[in-house]
């Protein structure tokens, strides 16, 4: 009898729990739909216009801003807070720094509690962005004033503004190159390998530090792909015509050949499994590392990691093209939660952060997304010397998001780290694979996904 009662009680209990959950889900979707209907039918000015009419004194509330900069959230960001609150005295800004932004934000998105201001996670499929984020204006208007807003726009509406626009190249230590006897900056892959060999022979420095163990630095190489391709249309457009884009002669093949070659010829660190990113910045500053392939955002961090800031500079990724092309890529896109209670304050913060904070140049080593902010000096010089800084052409409307879909489905991960680690492992002889074997495995996976997505 007792046992039966228990079973009955337990099952009833579980049922109630389940029912409660189911109910929650229904409610959530209902209110979501209702919300979007309201937005569509209302005659009022949209929030991204309306806040501008408000007096700074009128804007108020507790604003939660998510950031990935755990390193400066207690220093630089506190200054931002002071400056912003001086302008908008009734807003109280609170920062929440996430160590692994991409990984931490995902489980929170569905709880609808992910701060008032955050970044658009790149993992959110483009068509789902409007379900979570507040529109910031039409693409046609925003394009006039901002760089890079078209990248994650949905149906002509912008949902995020890049916090900085950066470019990728090879960061190198001038003093080490000098000591090794490299007098002219290498331009082609062959010259680059030669230069690294000279560094190995003539100095104690590590010619190229991969940061293999931290893995994400390997994904930085992808940012320079358009330099190897020598074209602003390849990455988003031309690649979609080819179901096997990693064959000999294709830009990706040539691009990652360099990664394989340096590792195979022993021009990288001795024990890649125990590298450490924070230490590598100091080592590079001290002349123990000659080169690293990274985005321009890293330049400032490496320069400030030691006394030799003047030795650290960035050059174009070695390539065999006639034009020296740096593709400008958006860093994270700052966005506003659709579920925020403080939208006017959130818009005020975004506007201030992009236009007035100076974050993009001082902290992110890039260019401001706002076209009103002038180019930094170093870039202006490089431009005069013949380098081109271009935005990549976006995919045509009907193919929007397809590249991401194929990439995820195939698990090649153009911006991912796993396959690049495999490439380095193959190069140092830990795997029984040649470079062509690795590329073929990418090709096969890509082709299968391509046929599934593009059919």
């Amino acid at each position, binding site marked *: 009898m007792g046992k039966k*009662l228990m079973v009955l009680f337990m099952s009833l209990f579980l049922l109630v729990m389940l029912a409660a959950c189911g109910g929650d889900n229904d409610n959530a979707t209902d209110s979501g739909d209702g919300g979007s209907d309201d937005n569509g039918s209302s005659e009022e000015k949209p929030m991204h216009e309306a806040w501008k009419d408000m007096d700074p004194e009128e804007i108020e509330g507790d604003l939660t801003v998510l950031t990935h900069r755990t390193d400066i959230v207690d220093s630089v960001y506190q200054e931002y807070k002071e400056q912003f609150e001086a302008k908008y005295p009734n807003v109280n800004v609170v920062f929440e720094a996430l160590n692994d932004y991409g*990984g931490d934000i995902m489980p929170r998105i569905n709880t609808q509690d992910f701060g008032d201001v955050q970044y658009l996670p790149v993992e959110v499929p483009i068509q789902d962005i409007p379900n979570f984020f507040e529109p910031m204006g039409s693409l046609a208007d925003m394009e006039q004033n901002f760089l890079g807003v078209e990248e994650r726009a949905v149906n002509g509406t912008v949902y995020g503004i890049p916090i900085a626009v950066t470019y990728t190249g090879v960061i190198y230590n001038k003093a080490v190159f000098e000591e090794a006897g490299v007098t002219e900056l290498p331009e082609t892959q062959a010259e680059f390998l030669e230069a690294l060999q000279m560094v190995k022979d003539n100095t104690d420095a590590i010619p190229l530090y991969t940061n293999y163990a931290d*893995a994400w630095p390997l994904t930085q190489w992808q940012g320079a792909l358009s330099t190897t391709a020598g074209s602003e249309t390849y990455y988003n457009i031309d690649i979609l015509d080819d179901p096997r884009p990693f064959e000999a002669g294709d830009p990706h093949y040539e691009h990652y050949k360099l990664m394989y070659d340096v590792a195979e010829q022993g021009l990288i660190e001795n*024990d890649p*499994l*125990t590298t450490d990113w924070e230490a590598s910045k100091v080592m590079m500053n001290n002349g123990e590392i000659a080169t690293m392939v990274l985005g321009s955002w890293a330049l400032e961090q490496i320069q400030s990691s030691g006394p030799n800031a003047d030795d650290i500079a960035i050059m174009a990724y070695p390539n065999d093209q006639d034009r020296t092309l740096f593709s400008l890529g958006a860093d994270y896109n700052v966005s506003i939660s659709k579920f925020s209670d403080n939208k006017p304050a959130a818009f005020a913060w975004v506007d201030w952060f992009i236009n007035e904070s100076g974050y993009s140049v001082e902290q992110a080593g890039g260019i401001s997304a706002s076209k009103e902010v002038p180019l930094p000096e170093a870039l202006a010089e490089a431009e005069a010397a013949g380098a081109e800084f271009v935005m990549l052409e976006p995919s045509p409307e009907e193919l929007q998001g397809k590249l991401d879909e194929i990439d995820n489905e195939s698990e090649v991960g153009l911006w991912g780290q796993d396959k690049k680690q495999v490439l380095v492992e193959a190069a*140092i002889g830990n795997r029984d694979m040649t470079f062509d074997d690795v590329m073929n495995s990418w090709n096969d996976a890509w082709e299968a996904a391509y046929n599934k997505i593009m059919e």
Partner: protein
Amino acid sequence: MSKLKEIISKMSFSNISYKAQRNIIIIAFLAVPMTLLATFAFLPVINMFWYSFTDWNGYSKMNFVGLDNYKTIFSNPEYFSVFRVSLYYFFATFVQLGIALYFATILSFEVKFKNFFKGVLFFPYLLNGVAIGLMFLLFFRADGTLDTVLHAIGLGDYTQMWLGNPKLINISLAGVSVWRYMGFNFIIFLGAISSIPNEIYEASEIDGANRWHQFIYIILPSIKIIVSLNLILAVSGSLSAFEIPFIMTGGANGSATFVIQTVNTAFRYGKIGLGSAMAVVLLFIVVVVTGIQRKFFSEGD
């Protein structure tokens, strides 16, 4: 007045039948832990089963896809080849239990500094997994602690790329795992051994048994259930090894375990559905392995 008292006394708990009392108390006491268990254990598992039949990516609307995810897993050898890595942890399990049993037996007899040694052996289990990962990263790195020690005792020629060598990496990592979890097995063994009454040892000594005889004929039979329990825990632990390889190498250089692969599938490639299906598969494998073990060890109990 007296009537009211009468009613109250009738309603009081002691007037209900013993059976009903018992049921009420059982239910009342169990409600709290069962609520917690249901909320934090059953519900997520049920959700996981549901996700495993969908193509959810964490953001978009879910679509029901039936058994597609399971088909993907079972038709693609890549997903299963990583269980090869689990074998390293599986064999390490026996080493771990052997060492734990050895120390537990020794420390159950009269030894000097007994409590100190107990503390030292149990200490690693108290450390945080992340701390252990970072510690051993420094331990294994080229010219790190291990290499320095080897040089110091004249074995410098034996230094290796402990993590860089794909043939050694899993052995190194499994070694860390042994170091970490041995203390836990040890303390359980020690508890079981100390529950054996002293008279039995005394009687056996009169019969001329030495320490080895005592271990084989008294200790081992007495703690058989505990050994099998530890074995089950350790084997299912080896199948789902995650923390140490994830922190130390992130699964690089052929050290990815099934759980690392599951996490990457779900969160790095945004395939929550497929990842859930992999977790369900792992759950079943662990249940089956545990079942087999119980079958083998339950005779006689």
